[in-house]
């Protein structure tokens, strides 16, 4: 899977405790920077009603969907209760030379 590293953006283009949307070859991802300065990536759409999670709010290790407040742990993808019950898929992330890459599989 290490062949599939895709460059997302410069690491400083994502604020701490924030998220951006990243579209690649017809797919959409959400890429996060945690309060402790680590980077993570998940599928970009909420598993409840296909809303872009990047419009939502990041608090600690939780992303909250902007539409109906479905919550996920963006580090593990785990759904944290109603209205969401299906986990988010997560993707490997690395930072190299100041840029963020995700492994799209």
């Amino acid at each position, binding site marked *: 899977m290490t062949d599939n590293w895709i460059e997302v953006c410069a690491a400083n283009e994502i604020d701490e405790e924030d998220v951006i949307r990243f579209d690649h070859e017809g797919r959409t991802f959400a890429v996060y920077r945690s309060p402790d300065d680590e980077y993570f990536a998940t599928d970009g759409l909420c598993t409840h009603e296909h809303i872009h999670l990047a*419009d*939502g709010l990041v608090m600690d290790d939780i992303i909250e969907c902007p539409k109906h407040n479905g919550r996920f742990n963006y580090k593990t993808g785990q759904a944290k209760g109603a*209205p969401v019950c299906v986990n988010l898929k997560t993707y490997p992330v690395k930072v190299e030379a100041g840029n963020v890459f995700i492994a799209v599989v």
Partner: protein
Amino acid sequence: MKSIVIVGAGECGARAAFGLREKGYEGEITLIGAEPHLPYERPPLSKEGLVDAQGPKHVAELDRYQSARITVLTDAPVEGIDRGERTVRVADGRKLSYDRLLLATGAKPKSFPGQPENAPLVRVLRTHADAAAIRMKLAPGSTLAIIGGGFIGLELAATARKLGAEVVVLEGLPRVLSRGVPEEIAAVVAERHRLEGVDIRCNARIAGIEMREKRALIQLGDGDSLVADLVVVGIGAVPNTALAEAAGLVVDNGIAVDETLCTSDPNIFAAGDCCSFPLGHYGGRRIRLEAWRNAQDQGTLAAANLLGAAEPINSVPWFWSDQYDLTLQIAGLAEGAVTVVRRDLGDGAFILFHLDASGRLISASGIGKGNAVARDIRLAEMLIAAGKRPSPQALGSTETKLKALLAA
């Protein structure tokens, strides 16, 4: 405790049922609904659900109830509660015993004086069956008359336009969305509807509705009249309190509950649209909410409190509405505000913050395309819950991140 019965299989009742298992309760759970469906989400009924014309969007599928050992009774109206023997009586004659009972009976659409009964061309929108009946009448060339310019009416107007129908909205007050939506935001919504071809008539009086063959003739108070293929009445809802009243529970604009959702009977709780409750963040003011998020929050809280947690209601009212590509979100209650601050987010999106005389943030209302206002409204909700007094200057400037105000 061996048996918990939940009357009302909507969002709130379903949430409570699952919440009981999440809290570790091992006894019986029976969730009883009057409709023929598993609990489903009502918000889509006036929106995309009406366009899709699919079955109802279930809160959870049957296997999840089965694995959580929740018995769901559908098509089962409850006819009475015997508080002495702690039983509820279902229409088919069954009697179910409870140790604790949750009433999540919801609300039903209001009708106006003189509204024709059992008239297939004069409908309300509350259930999947209502939506399906309305859907059949919406097509290019048909005319829909909506009585009431509130959330339901305007969401339906937007959806009906999408389906090609002509739409007239008759609102009795001088403007649409007069309940709980600031005028500046309601004006954006009304303007968009006009651009989409909806005929909004404010200050309208309905003098009467007559059936003319396959159409309805609406006589207006000003002597004008209009003909429609379907009339939908969306003028608010009243709480379903009949069961509670018959059982002698205290009712006050809804089944009256304390801050833990407990009714005047310590074994009976009520939650969601059907109950009125004291709202801590607003000085204990007694209110009733008809909102999806409230149904969820109170369902979850009721589960904890049915098991004895005695946790108080601590959430901030939150609503949303989707019309065309616009989303409106409101957190808090603006009544009593003395200061209003506008924050412009670009591309026409903006938020109005309402502060009380002490400078406390009490409400935030936003509108914009897609989810443009969602993140800031969510942060505003947290600022309200935290009792913050942010400076109006900071609220008005996008230079200041709301998250920073929360930490301050």
